[in-house]
């Protein structure tokens, strides 16, 4: 997965979807994460590189299908990967909050423990620049993940995985909207390539679909915000409810590499012969506590280039409704296949 990457991608959508409801919580103050965390994260990654033993396994393959790492919807496979995701969008104002430009940089690392079971860790840094008032920067909450790939069918290019993501409340900066409570998300992932279609429709074979669905359970149902009204001198309380939401998203991909290698060589040269055209649909629906049935999300058309050990991707972020936003954003991905870069060390499963 870049399970971590997926997790922080959820943060991007979540921040936009819930921006209007965020209120500073005086009862549960959070510790500001110092800048040294970034260096610690890099140091942690480097330390792991040194410590891992030697071997090599495949990532993202189901038969001859290579499932690329997507930018917005979490991938169905377990792998050794390192991702840097950069997102920028203009968010609409809501309540007392003015419109703002939001930039998020995420770093995510996933590691296979066994060939079918992996863990992930992710951290993001946000910079919010509102139309009114001063800009704010800070880290989002730490994100951890587990994933188990329980089905892989080579002939039908199919993958099914189950995972649990956890956003650890209070580890991020309140000033950039990091929640003070944790959120647990059991998730079901799928991937399916169309390589098993008959010869008569062979040009549809390069298509593949991936997706994810699962609820997000906050560990606290509500936040009570207590403030002093300086005008009246009275203490006022505001209750902010934290709903259960449903993450659901999918991607539609067309692989030019698959077309060239397995269907028909139409003469595409580099770099087109390693490109995947895709559209992602990262969506989130509120299930209760005052916003039941409300959906936010994006339609993200984009393109990914897959190299030998690195891939680059870029997507537009188009809001699906006014609740999500009005402006088009952009996502960029730089992604390293650690099992290709370090097949004899970091890139192999531990067991």
């Amino acid at each position, binding site marked *: 997965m870049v399970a971590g990457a997926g997790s922080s991608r959820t943060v991007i959508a979540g921040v936009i979807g819930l921006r209007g409801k965020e209120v500073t919580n005086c009862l549960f103050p959070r510790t500001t994460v110092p*800048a040294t965390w*970034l*260096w610690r994260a*890099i140091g942690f*990654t*480097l330390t792991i*590189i040194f410590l891992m033993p030697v*071997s*090599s*396994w*495949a990532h993202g*393959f189901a*038969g*001859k299908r*290579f499932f690329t790492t997507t930018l917005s919807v979490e991938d169905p496979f377990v792998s050794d990967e*390192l991702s*840097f995701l950069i997102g920028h969008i203009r968010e609409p104002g809501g309540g007392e909050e003015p419109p703002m430009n939001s930039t998020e*940089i995420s*770093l995510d690392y996933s590691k296979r423990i066994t060939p079918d079971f992996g863990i992930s860790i992710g951290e993001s*840094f946000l*910079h919010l620049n509102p139309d009114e008032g001063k800009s704010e*920067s*800070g880290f989002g909450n730490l994100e951890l993940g587990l994933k188990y790939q329980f089905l892989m069918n*080579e002939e039908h290019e199919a993958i099914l995985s189950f995972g649990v993501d956890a956003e650890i409340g209070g580890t991020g900066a309140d000033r950039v909207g990091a929640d003070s409570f944790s959120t647990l998300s059991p998730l079901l992932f799928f991937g399916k390539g169309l390589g098993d279609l008959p010869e008569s429709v*062979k040009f549809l074979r390069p298509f593949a679909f991936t997706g994810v669905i699962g609820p997000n359970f906050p560990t606290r149902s509500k936040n009570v915000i207590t403030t002093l009204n300086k005008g009246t001198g009275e203490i006022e309380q505001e209750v902010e409810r934290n709903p259960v939401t449903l993450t659901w998203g999918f991607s539609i991909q067309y692989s030019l*590499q698959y077309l*060239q*290698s*397995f*269907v*028909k*060589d139409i003469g595409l040269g580099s770099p087109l012969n390693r490109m995947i055209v895709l559209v992602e649909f990262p969506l989130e629906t509120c299930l209760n506590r005052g916003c039941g049935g409300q959906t936010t999300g994006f339609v993200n058309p984009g393109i990914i280039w897959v190299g*030998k*050990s*690195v891939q680059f991707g870029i997507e537009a972020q188009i809001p699906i409704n006014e609740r999500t936003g009005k402006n088009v954003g952009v996502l960029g991905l*730089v992604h*390293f*296949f*650690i*099992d*290709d*870069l*370090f*097949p*004899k*060390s970091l*890139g192999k499963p531990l067991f």
Partner: protein
Amino acid sequence: MVNWRQLLIALVFALALPCLWTDKVGGHALLDHCDPKVGETVSGSPVSIRLWFDRDLEPLSSAVSVQDARRNRVDKKNVRVNPSNAKLLEVGVPPLPAGTYRVIWNVVTRDGHRTTGDYTFVIK
């Protein structure tokens, strides 16, 4: 508060590191091109089937076979990774009649990464 310049330097450093410091021989082999081409219709039987990959192959573990429409193996079973080009996998074929043929490959790179694939070509 994080200094943006500091963050940018850290990001560039973190991005560059994996590219500079690798095991050098890793990775999955993907088919770059082949002869006959994927999905091509050719006039007359080829002498051999040649597949070029994007990484060096392990000779003892890499294989390719050719089947006719009835799934009978028709190649000469003299599969080899070209001694002067470790990215080239080839197998000879006898004179083949007109028809549709499937090339099935299964290759391993020198670090043990395995990939598989198949494609068809037509002799008219």
